[in-house]
């Protein structure tokens, strides 16, 4: 299915059918992107809804000559980034002030039970700062180029390269420190 820029203009005019068509066309892309950062289907669905909600409340910001899918990707990544930061702050606060949450996205026990299922790599990746985690996932999992990542995050290509280098280094250090990797 090809994307018609006319749809955006109609959605900007408040036409419900055009908005619906945009959701239908782009929800697989938004779901795929959000899935890269969150592991529970409910979280992914909630965030995808947030993304489209933001998209339609700010759709007048899209210029007629702008690349809508690129803009949508930027909104999606920013929404994920905000949520990752919130989750990280919440987890940090729980570690200090409260008991461990029962439904943590990645529990340590899970890693011990099933070490072969990349559990340690997942824990190491989730422990990364969102500033490092997002470029790394976009590069290694989403297979975007450095230029595309820079455009999506609104930073320079050099900055992307620096963040990728630091992310890989931290990930390698976390993995090297894990008992399972040491054993092998």
């Amino acid at each position: 299915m090809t994307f018609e820029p006319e749809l955006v203009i109609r959605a900007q005019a408040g036409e419900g059918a055009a908005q619906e068509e945009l959701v239908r066309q782009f929800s697989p892309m938004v779901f795929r992107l959000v899935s890269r950062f969150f592991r529970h289907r409910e979280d992914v669905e909630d965030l995808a809804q947030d993304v489209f909600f933001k998209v339609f409340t700010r759709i007048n910001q899209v210029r007629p000559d702008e690349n809508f899918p690129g803009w949508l990707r930027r909104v999606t990544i920013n929404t994920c980034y905000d949520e990752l930061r919130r989750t990280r702050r919440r987890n940090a606060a729980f570690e200090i002030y409260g008991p461990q949450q029962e439904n943590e996205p990645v529990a340590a026990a899970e890693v011990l039970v099933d070490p072969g299922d990349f559990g340690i790599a997942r824990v190491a990746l989730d422990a990364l700062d969102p500033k490092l985690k997002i470029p790394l996932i976009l590069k290694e999992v989403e297979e975007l180029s450095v230029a595309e990542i820079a455009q999506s995050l609104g930073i320079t290509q050099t900055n992307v390269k620096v963040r990728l280098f630091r992310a890989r280094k931290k990930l390698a250090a976390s993995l090297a420190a894990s008992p399972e990797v040491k054993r092998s």
Partner: protein
Amino acid sequence: MQDGNRKMNSKLDEFFKSERARVFEPGPYFTQRVMARLAEQISVQRENGIWDGVLSGARPVFALAMVLLLAFMAIQLFLPDMPERGPIDAVLSPDQTDGEHLIFSGADPSSPELEKMIIITEDGQ
């Protein structure tokens, strides 16, 4: 050491490969849910009154300002305008002659025109 690094890199590559395969698809009613949420938000925005546009912290100040403004408008509306004459003027004015009235009305008594008018009115009486 190099062998360890290579092993770790290949493990990471495998991990990233497995992450690529982990994708959730939108459910059959996702579009309807988004549209329903949008419609709900639009109706909430329509229901919102003047108070929802004001920050909660600023509401008491805004309310006080509104009360003061309304009170001022009510005073302006219901109280009569300030009379041009004071109570003493009002009591004494029936006894004033036209000449006295000219003097007490604040006109310059030394002006020759006023003097002439006073003489004329006094003579007339």
